């Protein structure tokens, strides 16, 4: 079992997926639209993408998402 706060790339991705896109979504007075940020894993390099976008493209074809930027 891997604890959520251990330092592992996949777990960081799981963590980001949860806190950027899950949990209670209440419009505060200052809402960060972090959903607009890009997150993609390419080998050891971590780039940010919205989980929404990733879901739309079925989390495949990451090359397409990269090229469109």
């Amino acid at each position, binding site marked *: 079992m891997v604890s959520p706060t251990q330092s592992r790339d996949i777990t960081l991705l*799981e963590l980001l997926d949860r806190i950027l896109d899950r949990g209670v979504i209440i419009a505060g007075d200052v809402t960060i639209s972090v959903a607009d940020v890009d997150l993609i894993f390419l080998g050891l390099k971590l780039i940010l993408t919205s989980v929404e976008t990733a879901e739309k493209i079925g989390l495949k074809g990451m090359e397409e998402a990269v090229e469109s930027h």
Partner: protein
Amino acid sequence: MNRLRSSLSPDKLGARKSKLGGAEKGFYIYCVMDRDKSFKKFDGKKGPRGREIYAIPYKDVGAVVSKVDLSEFDGTALEENLNDMEWIESNVRGHEKVIEEVMRHRAVIPFKFGTIFRTEARVREMLEENYHDLKHLLCWFKDKREWAVKVYCNLQELKSALSKSSVRINEPGKEISSKSAGAAYFLRKKAEDILSEEADQKMVEYAEKFYRQFGEYAEECKLSPLWSRETTGKDADMILNATYLVEGEKEKDFLSTFQSLKREHAANGLEFECTGPWPPYNFVPLPAFAKAMAGQSIRKDSNG
């Protein structure tokens, strides 16, 4: 590569854009918790960057917050910060650490990153407006934790395991040795196609079977999109990505099911991964809160 917008939705006093380096403060919410009589305060525990954490109470619930500098979350600053792995490490992991700490002692409803209110009164207002939904959810979450299971399949290994056991696949093989080169080629091709088909079917069967098996020990379960190889960096395909809300009493059985399935299927090219316990991020019903905020501007993205 990094596109980023942070928006300040209009508050009741009218929209004001915070400036870089401005001293405007806000109240950052990590989660809402059950505030039973035993709760005093968060002795010594700190949030990200050593921030104080404390609870803003409303009846028997509380919002766990830190006072923050709005400038850290302002558009340009946020973009820079999100490019900074150290900032991510401390703020993102820090957000999670606070929730995990609170979760050790009581039921929590985790909030998405970046929910900030301008005043404590506004936080209390949010608690009041959503009190019944929050209370209901806290009751549901009591003594339960989220666990994530991912299963990966190495196609070559699966095919290898199947070809040893499958009659259908071995049938053509018996004829091949007695045929001409051309006929042999077609028979081999046929055998490969059958093997591919069986492997595809097997992966779907496995995914459904495992999803159900783990679900026997859960109060709620959820399927999430599969991650690509580019994302996981593995030489295998993800066939199951599921989360489960498991009662404390059933955790032991849930985890031993995980261990035995993992062992049982290692020879079939299957890899099992389990992470947890997580705060119940995946089991927060969104519509309940979205409707409570009718009338306020809600960005389409933030509704998930």
